[in-house]
């Protein structure tokens, strides 16, 4: 297991370098002079020169790249053109907001998706199976925008159960420490705020989790169906093992690898793809941070934001790979 982990970690190095290269050249692939593009038509020659220097664009590309990597190693992600503040200093709260939301969305998606998939496979062709799979199809095809607004309408306006926007009750604000509000409120022992934070997470969590939930449910079902037809399942049943254990223990373990792959990929997608949900629910996350940067042509922010999301994506997939090995011992010998 250790050797496998080390090998996978080593493989990350070229991947991460490749990513920095792509992100680095992205900003340089912009047609024309980026400084001119950023500053617009009215810019004076001087302003363009100073920005070119600030962006380091007056040097040969390999020196720029080395500089860029050096800065990355010291944790310097550059300076936002729009707010003139350090990106490494301001990015964490956004990232924390998105992480918290994505994790909750994933928990909802996995719990409901996996169970729905299992039960559908267990009672194949039953009314539950049909209903669940139709719902899954609807879930995949539903626009997040619409779903979010409908949730707000139903659960905030009509029923008044849950808040419609934001991360907290702003009249009873959370003191941010880690910016992961669930943790912050627990550390401070503020159960009232903890409950508020959870309430604020539910609607966006469901909106964001619906598509992965549907995909996971369908994946689990097909994978389970395959496994449940295999010999060892029949043996287990012949031994008189309760059906519940046959399904949840013997079959699920063997059916889980493809499901895990899907979960890993979906989690990565959520991080970058949360922008619609973040917009509808006024969630101050990384998706909106990057989106705003695009609108304002804040290239350093775009560059660093994308890099961070990409790095997390890679690491989630690493974790998934390691989990494969934990679930299926055969994998580490490959």
């Amino acid at each position, binding site marked *: 297991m250790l050797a496998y982990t080390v090998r996978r970690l080593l493989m990350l190095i070229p991947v991460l370098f490749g990513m920095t290269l792509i992100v680095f050249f992205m900003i340089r692939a912009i047609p024309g002079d980026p400084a001119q*593009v950023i*500053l*617009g*038509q*009215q*810019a*004076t020659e*001087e*302003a363009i020169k*100073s*920005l070119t220097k600030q962006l380091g664009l007056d040097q040969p590309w390999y020196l720029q790249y080395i500089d860029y990597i050096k800065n990355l190693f010291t944790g310097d992600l550059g300076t936002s053109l*729009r*707010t*003139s*503040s350090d990106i490494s200093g*301001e990015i964490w*709260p*956004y990232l924390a*907001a998105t992480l918290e939301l994505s994790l*909750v969305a994933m*928990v*909802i998606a*996995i*719990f409901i998706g996996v169970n729905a998939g299992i039960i559908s496979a267990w009672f194949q062709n039953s009314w539950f199976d049909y209903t669940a799979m139709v719902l899954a199809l609807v879930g995949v095809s539903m626009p997040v925008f619409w779903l979010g*607004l409908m949730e*707000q*309408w139903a659960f*905030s*306006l009509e029923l*008044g*159960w*849950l*808040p*419609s*926007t*934001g991360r907290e*009750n*702003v*009249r009873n*604000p959370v003191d*941010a420490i880690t910016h992961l509000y669930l943790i912050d409120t627990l550390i401070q022992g503020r159960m009232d705020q903890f*409950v*508020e934070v*959870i*309430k604020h997470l*539910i609607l966006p969590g469901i909106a964001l989790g619906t598509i992965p939930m549907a995909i996971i449910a369908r994946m689990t079902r097909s994978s389970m169906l395959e496994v449940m037809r295999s010999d060892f399942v029949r043996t287990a049943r012949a031994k008189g093992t309760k059906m519940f254990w046959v399904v949840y223990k013997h079959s*699920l*373990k063997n059916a*889980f690898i493809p499901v895990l792959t899907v979960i890993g990929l979906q989690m990565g997608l959520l991080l970058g793809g949360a922008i619609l949900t973040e*917009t*509808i629910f*006024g969630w*101050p*996350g990384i998706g*909106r*941070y990057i989106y*705003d940067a695009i*609108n304002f*042509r804040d290239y350093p922010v775009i560059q660093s934001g994308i890099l961070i999301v990409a790095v997390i994506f890679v690491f989630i997939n690493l974790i998934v790979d390691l989990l494969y090995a934990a*679930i299926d011992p055969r994998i580490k010998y490959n």
Partner: protein
Amino acid sequence: MKKTIFSLLFVLLLSIGLAGCGGSNESSGNGGGDSGDGGEEAGGTLIFGRGGDSVSLDPASVTDGESFKVTKNIFDTLLDYGDDNTDVQEALATDWEVSDDGKTYTFTLREGVKFHDGTDFNADAVVYNFERWMNGNEEAFYYYKSMFGGFKGDEGHVIESVTATDDYTVEFKLKRPQAPFLKNIAMSPFAIASPDALEKQGDKFGENPVGTGPFVFDQWNRNDKIVLNKNDEYWMDGYPKLDSVIFRAIPDNSARLNALMAGEIDLMDGLNPSDVQQVEDNADLQTFFRPSMNVGYLGLTTDRGPLKDKLVRQALNHAVDKQALIDSFYAGQAEPAKNPMPPVIGGYNDEIEPYEYDLDKAKELLKEAGYEDGFEMELWAMPVPRPYMPDGQKVAEVLQKSFAEIGVDAEIKSYEWATYLEKARNGEADSFLLGWTGDNGDADNFLYVLLDQDNIGSNNYTYYENQELHDLLIEAQSTPDEEERNKLYKEAQEIIHEDAPWIPLVHSKPALGGSSTIKGFSPHPTGSDKLTKVTLQ
């Protein structure tokens, strides 16, 4: 392993579910009492929902309305606008005098005012702020350049010197008279900041602003909320009424309305015209309409193809039914435009006869210009909603249809917003939708900025050139006499009307929605509201 994962998941979900249920009862309890939190004797907290976050809270360095909305409440300017108009009135300066040649302005300052950090507001502070700006550059202080013509040493710079003649008197010497000087001084970017805090904070001042305004900056979570608390020592007796103001960013208009209806916010701007009725029908809510200080228009780039011909541009003007646009896309909350500036601006020429909606006349003009069979052109639709243009795409479709009726085949195009502006500015569009919201309520800020030949490549997107107009606008800039000046602007509007570089479409009244408990709020035409007098009842 697997079992532990699942039991963990299960416990987590269960706790979420339980917490959710447990909380739901409380929430209904909270809902009603929210706005009254803190009791009636105190002013309570007003939560203002808006579409975007501020860029920086140093008003001198920003250009976006979302920043000014907040800084307006943290800072004061020497002079301020009226509650719902752009007439100047006293603020940090209690009195001002203008010399006969219009080149010396003397301000008497309010005594006993303190910045939020406890330092004194006085003449030195004013001088410090102006020195800071005039020694800056365009990147740092955009509005200073655009309103006062440049920086120290620049040819166009209007301000010769700013001196403190005693503790509470400041004298401005100008190189030449500038008619809108007082209106400029009242603009949000020229708010007086604490010199002490500027020194201490340096680059970080925009995140830790210190002014003299009715509210004190408390906290800023980017893209989320900005919290301001009452300034107990505000110079205006008995004000502000509110204990605190929280600005929240909720980008989507419909979601923001949902938050308003759910009681999570008390006031919102960017209310969709189509939602106005819904808010008015709700007994717990009320609507506000911002007096129009904007114009939405279709620019006709005057150096491209058939649009070079004045007759063609006039023909297109005759082909647009503005009232129909207003009824369809502004829920009636706008007035048809006939001039490039709205009627609230001094110098508005109401005697101009609008190009009436008349397709026959339009066809006649086209024929006269030699385009009897029409022609093809591009029609650019802006990709983002703006106060003066809630739905550029749909407006473009209606215009396309109107033009088709006189044989002009318009192809609708759109780009991502930054690209759109850049390309239009480069003169790459035949015709394009755009608009403008006034900065200081002065005619110069519309006519000179948008249509003078000096501003080609800047805000004159139509590349419209007219020497006669240019002479008038320049003369008006240094004519201090209000009446004389208005006459010049009226004349200028006649020329623009005749040359028709635009189809002026509408002056919209952007809608806001608020809780019915809000009293004393009147939306300001400039788009940023001072919340000093607002109460919650």
